[in-house]
């Protein structure tokens, strides 16, 4: 009974390990965030192969059935993984918020500049030919257009 369970857990853990590994290879999961999964999988395998550790620990903690100790371990690991993800989410949340704010202000700045140029009847034109070593300011050209206002004034005269 115990051996069968050991085998099932070992196979399941290995499959999970390989599955996460393949996802990392396919760049679906970032290795940094998969580390906590690998860590848990390795611990699980160690406990599974040496059930003595589990019995020792359950004795130590006064748990009658070693399988309950395993459950406790599993639960602890899940909490650990969720905790690391909470930190990751918080970090990303802050960064996304700042990005949105910066984008909003950049857009505003751009509209400001475009508006100022438009007042001067200047159009921003893209230059198709450019060399790589020149900065972004060389990729556009400011073209001053003839003022339509003066033309209409002449017509009136």
């Amino acid at each position, binding site marked *: 009974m115990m051996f069968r369970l050991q085998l099932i857990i070992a196979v399941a853990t290995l499959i999970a390990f390989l599955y996460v590994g393949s996802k990392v290879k396919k760049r679906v999961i970032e290795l940094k965030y998969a580390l906590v999964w690998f860590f848990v999988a390795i611990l699980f395998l160690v406990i599974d192969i040496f059930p003595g550790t589990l019995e020792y620990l359950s004795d130590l903690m006064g748990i009658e059935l070693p399988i309950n100790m395993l459950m406790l371990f599993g639960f602890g690991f899940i909490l650990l993984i969720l905790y690391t993800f909470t930190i990751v989410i918080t970090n990303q949340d802050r960064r996304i918020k700042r990005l949105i704010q910066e984008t909003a*202000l950049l857009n505003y*700045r751009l509209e400001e500049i475009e508006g100022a140029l438009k007042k001067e009847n200047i159009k921003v034109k893209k230059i198709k030919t450019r060399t790589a070593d020149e900065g972004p300011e060389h990729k556009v050209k400011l073209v001053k257009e003839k003022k339509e206002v003066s033309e209409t004034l002449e017509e009136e005269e």
Partner: protein
Amino acid sequence: MKKALVIIPAYNEEGNIIKTVEDIKKNAPSFDYVIINDCSKDDTMRLCEKSGYNVVNMPLNSGIGAAVQCGYLYAKRYGYEYAVQVDGDGQHDAAFLEEMLSIIKTEKMNMLIGSRFIEKEGFQSSGARRMGINWFSRLIKIFTGETVTDPTSGMRMVGRDVINFFAEEYPKDYPEPETAITVLKLGYTLKEIPVRMKAREEGTSSISFKRAIYYMFKVTIACFMAGIGYEKYKKEDFMDRSYGGEKL
């Protein structure tokens, strides 16, 4: 450019935004204003652009806290010395802004809160809300020893140092009571002055009945978090060494 800025966070405020801005233009001439449109689904953006208002459009809806913080970031970048937050729903009376500005200047306060409950005039909110407000008032008293009669008031004016602080760190939603504690804990000076507020005319408050539970829970925990123990930031981190502001 003027030295003081009104930050107007707006989310689906097509019914109120024009009234709010015109009120500020008319009754608060020493202020520039900026509308932070938090990706409204209604006509707010088009209305603002048609009227030629100064508006910053958030590319994604990110909540009132992020929108207001964007306003403080704007104030920091464009070198404003004072910034005040006014709700886009027309509840705040712009006539009090000039008074607040002169007080914050002469008394050299870091933060000024417009309170409905000092002279008990104007819109006083419902009974249940008053209870909530009292609760936060008491929390602030416990954690900081200071009396803030209207901790949920959205009408808050801050000076350059607190602008810098808010641009760096501002809660995601329902920030008012929590930031009052943080600001006091950091050692800034805070004062309340009496204002009158109006009842909301159009649209719905961001705190609907369903969200009241979340509000109480979140803000209470936030107050405890702000009130107890270790503070990551120091007042000196946000001291302004270049008055007049950094140039873009």
